[in-house]
């Protein structure tokens, strides 16, 4: 960027010898990042560019603040979601077995949901489990114990 040219333009601007096109050119240059040299500060003030740059900087700051606020809101919602899951999952583990009504059986690979049939399976399983349990008396258990010792 030819800053010397724009220095000349700035000088001409103060002399009131610039054309409209040149002024536009100068204004465009002064709002760019290339016009950081302090020698342009005076012309920036006169042309009212400082206010423009300040406004841009203010709008940039508000944009950053807005983005920060959105990020914060997302993080807050994520935290509430995680917290909710953490609190609900143990609750489900604790209270699900009591509140749920289940009625299902798998017999020889076949799924049964009919209540009467499932209840019949329950009776049958319990009856088989209790069958001959009382006949296995202590004497029989002792005989079994001694027979395993003498083997």
């Amino acid at each position, binding site marked *: 960027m030819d800053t010397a040219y724009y220095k000349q333009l700035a000088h001409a601007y103060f002399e009131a010898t610039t054309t409209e096109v040149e002024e536009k050119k100068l204004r465009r240059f002064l709002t760019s990042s290339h016009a950081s040299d302090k020698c342009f500060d005076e012309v920036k003030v006169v042309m009212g560019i400082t206010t423009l740059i300040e406004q841009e900087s203010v709008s940039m700051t508000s944009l950053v603040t807005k983005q920060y606020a959105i990020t914060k809101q997302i993080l807050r919602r994520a*935290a509430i979601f*995680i*917290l909710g899951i*953490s*609190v609900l*999952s*143990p609750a489900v*583990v*604790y209270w699900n*077995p*009591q*509140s*749920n*009504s*289940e*009625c*299902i*059986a*798998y*017999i*020889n*690979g076949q799924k049964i949901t009919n*209540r009467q049939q*499932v*209840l019949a*399976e*329950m*009776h049958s*399983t*319990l*009856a*088989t*489990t*209790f*069958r*001959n*349990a009382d006949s*296995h008396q202590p004497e029989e*258990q002792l005989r*079994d*114990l001694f027979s*395993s010792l003498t083997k």
Partner: protein
Amino acid sequence: MKRFILLLVTFTWVITLLAQTDLHVAPYFTKRFVRTHKANMVKLSGETLEGYPLEVFQSITTKLSTDEVTSLEKAIAMDTKNAEQQEAATKHGRLYYGFYQLKASTTLPYRRFLFYRNNGLQPMGTPTYTIIYMEGRTTLQELKRKFAP
């Protein structure tokens, strides 16, 4: 605030973990076990048990390898270590049957029962194993009276 939330999350997860590791025989009452072992399973709870002194009934009847039988007997021994009431018998050095009323749970208002039967040890019995878990307002004697043949 952040510390409090972290503490709350940790606390709730610890509770979840404790609830899941309640019984050592729990893995036998899963659909996965039924599928892998072609086992017979019965699950009843809530309203379907109306008219019975039970809230939960779960049973599994399955064939097991020798190693699996040993694991199951160990799981039962661990779960029934502090049983409030028990009736058990051994045959040929193996647990033949066991009827246990488990130690009262702090989170459940019902009594818990765990039954085990090695069906292969009874005369003419099939080499299968039955595990039953129940919850209800009943006693071991009442269950026997109601369901024993």
